[in-house]
């Protein structure tokens, strides 16, 4: 016998209650997906890192520069194919409300090292040709409303003074998790305009083979251990992860909130199911009298709970996926490549199933175990 029409009819009896419960589950799964995506997006940031790239920084702290002479010495380390370097500029644009990262890079070697930074050939040539040219991410261009050829002035906080750059090139990241809001310019320009000699903030190495990373790191750090600028060499992934962990325990925070959200909505759905079941005590008894088995009645309640939570989950998870993809949400620039992954969706549906079981189980068991005589005694 097809019982689906009965389940649907039951759900339609309290239309408002069903609707509110479905929407409640939708909101909860939406929030759950959003919170989890913050974590997965932060982690994805370190996943974009190429396994065969390494970053060399000053052992004491990132803020200390490394000598320029290290470039040649790093090149001779076995396994290292290419070396590039960059510096953090840390300037302020306008009133400081629009924040973006600025790097001084050695243009040719840097762009060769990062094929993910895709620049049209003519713009690339224009950027390389001009000392004060800037290469700006597509996202930042849109956000700031800049156009190619425009002059942009940034006030240096580490390197004092007003710095004017001409935007000559725009890059598009070929991987979503790569920040499309960075501002890059020529290292030579920084060096030229600063009174004292500027030395690199960090070096990036391209390895012949990712497997060589531990040996290369050890060789480099040993070499410079007792110099005036000892180094810390690690994979690019570890370097990026270092920044993620600096936020603190985001994962724990997001997971705890996610749990609270799920429990809160469990209360709402379970309550709705219990109220529904209580109101139907009489008719469950009647169904039993006319020959419905305990198992069928158990199934009927569970099916109802399942239908409510899964519809809610489809709305909530689908809504999250479409909303974030449609608006290209990036956490106000803090979460580039924000994405609700397939894994998150799967876990979301798993949570919805658990919700269905947890909220339906007690009323379903009660319906299955109901004694006809007891129940009908209450029917007027």
């Amino acid at each position: 016998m097809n019982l689906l029409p009965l389940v649907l009819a039951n759900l339609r009896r309290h239309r408002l209650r069903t609707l509110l419960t479905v929407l409640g589950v939708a909101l909860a799964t939406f929030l759950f997906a959003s919170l989890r995506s913050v974590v997965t997006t932060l982690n994805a940031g370190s996943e974009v890192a190429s396994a065969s790239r390494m970053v060399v920084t000053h052992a004491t702290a990132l803020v200390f520069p490394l000598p320029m002479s290290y470039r040649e010495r790093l090149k001779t380390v076995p396994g290292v194919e290419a070396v590039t370097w960059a510096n953090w500029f840390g300037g302020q644009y306008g009133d400081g409300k629009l924040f973006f990262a600025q790097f001084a890079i050695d243009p040719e070697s840097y762009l060769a090292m990062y094929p993910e930074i895709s620049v049209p050939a003519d713009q690339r040539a224009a950027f390389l040709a001009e000392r004060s040219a800037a290469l700006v991410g597509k996202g930042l261009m849109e956000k700031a409303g800049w156009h190619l050829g425009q002059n942009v002035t940034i006030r240096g906080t580490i390197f004092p003074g007003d710095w004017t750059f001409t935007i000559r090139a725009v890059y598009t990241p070929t991987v979503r998790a790569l920040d499309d809001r960075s501002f890059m310019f020529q290292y030579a320009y920084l060096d030229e305009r600063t009174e004292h000699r500027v030395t690199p903030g960090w070096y990036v190495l391209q390895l012949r083979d990712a497997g060589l990373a531990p040996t290369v790191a050890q060789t480099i750090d040993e070499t410079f251990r007792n110099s005036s600028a000892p180094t810390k060499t690690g994979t690019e992934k570890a370097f990026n992860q270092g920044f993620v962990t600096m936020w603190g325990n985001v994962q724990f925070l997001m997971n705890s909130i996610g749990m609270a959200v799920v429990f809160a909505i469990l209360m709402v759905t379970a309550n709705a199911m219990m109220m529904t079941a209580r109101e139907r005590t009489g008719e469950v008894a009647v169904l039993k009298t006319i020959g419905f088995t305990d198992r069928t009645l158990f199934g009927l309640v569970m099916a109802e709970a399942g239908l409510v939570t899964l519809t809610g989950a489809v709305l909530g998870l689908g809504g999250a996926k479409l909303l974030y993809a449609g608006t290209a949400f990036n956490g106000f620039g803090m979460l580039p490549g924000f994405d609700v992954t397939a894994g998150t969706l799967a876990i979301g549906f798993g949570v919805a199933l658990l919700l269905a079981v947890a909220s339906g189980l007690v009323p379903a068991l009660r319906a299955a175990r109901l004694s006809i005589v007891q129940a009908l005694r209450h029917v007027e």
Partner: protein
Amino acid sequence: MIPFAYNLRSIAQRPVSTTMTALGVALVVAVFVAMLALAHGFRAALVKTGSPDNVIVLRRGADSEMSSGLSRDNARLIATDPRIASGVDGRPLVSPEVYVVINVPRVVGAGLSNVVARGVNAEAFTVRHTHLVAGRWFQSGRSEIVVGKKVAPRFAHTAIGDTLRFANRDWVVVGQFEAGGSALESEIWGENEQFMPVFRGDVFQSVIFRLRDPAAFDDVKRALEGDQRLQVQVQRESAFYAGQSTILTGVLTALAMMITSIMAVGAVFGAVNTMYAAVSSRTPEIAVLLTLGFPPRSVLASFLAESALIAILGGVAGGLLALPINGIVTSTTNWNSFSEVSFAFRVTPDLLLGGVVFALVMGLVGGFFPAWRAARLQVVQALR
């Protein structure tokens, strides 16, 4: 008015449904209180770091101590300002400071973290309102350091007697200080003259001094910023640190509001369901009340009160759920100084009250339509 006892007894009649609805609200309030306690804690740690009678001088254009730099000449010149307070020994309460961020290995979880290493002089402990909790202060001319009391539990080699190696030198930890829960407790302090040569050379990052009269701040600011020999910016220390907390506190507060308002909608749905069920199962009772002469207004008020009561129970429970996190220490990065700051969650009475008010709003919103329906019941139909 319909007696409130009627509502109390009605609620007691359906304990499961009441508990579940209240718990739904409670969880929303718990998240609300917990997230704001996080934001408050961070803000409090930074605000406490600065004192309103202290002044911090940075190089003009620098947005933090990290990007600042002041020469010895500048520091000496600033120290001569007559508005600077004197200590008990008659020396001016000025601390020219070296500021660097160093990598220190964590105890919990592998890896390194950024910790502030601050080079100070003997006056700094007075100027900065810090007190020793163990050991002694470092001695001038020695490779000795003292650490904030939140440093030792989190970082390796930072207990008293340990040797911490940084900047190619070994430093002996000789003491531990507290600073009223402020961000300074996450710092490592040594003598400025010792830190200078091993870090950034002959330059201070900031000069901090105590004002003889806090009201003289504007005068000092005008004098120092107008001095052609100096290229500096002058801020009240309290404003400087409060400014560093605004972005992260803002982000956390916005996040808390966003998450809890979405959750609140879910909880309101729960309240609506519960109250509609309550109204429909009590239809005959409502009819009796109306027949007895209670105006619809009273019925409306009575059901609203019932919904509000359930929500407030939830609000109180939520506050209690969130209470144990008060004082738990966590850490994040102060992106202005690029260093790790430890701080404690702060559940304040205001926050708890806010949570209960939030719950009350959820209850009133959720109860309104069901109560409206109850008030508009037709007696004849209801009694049929």
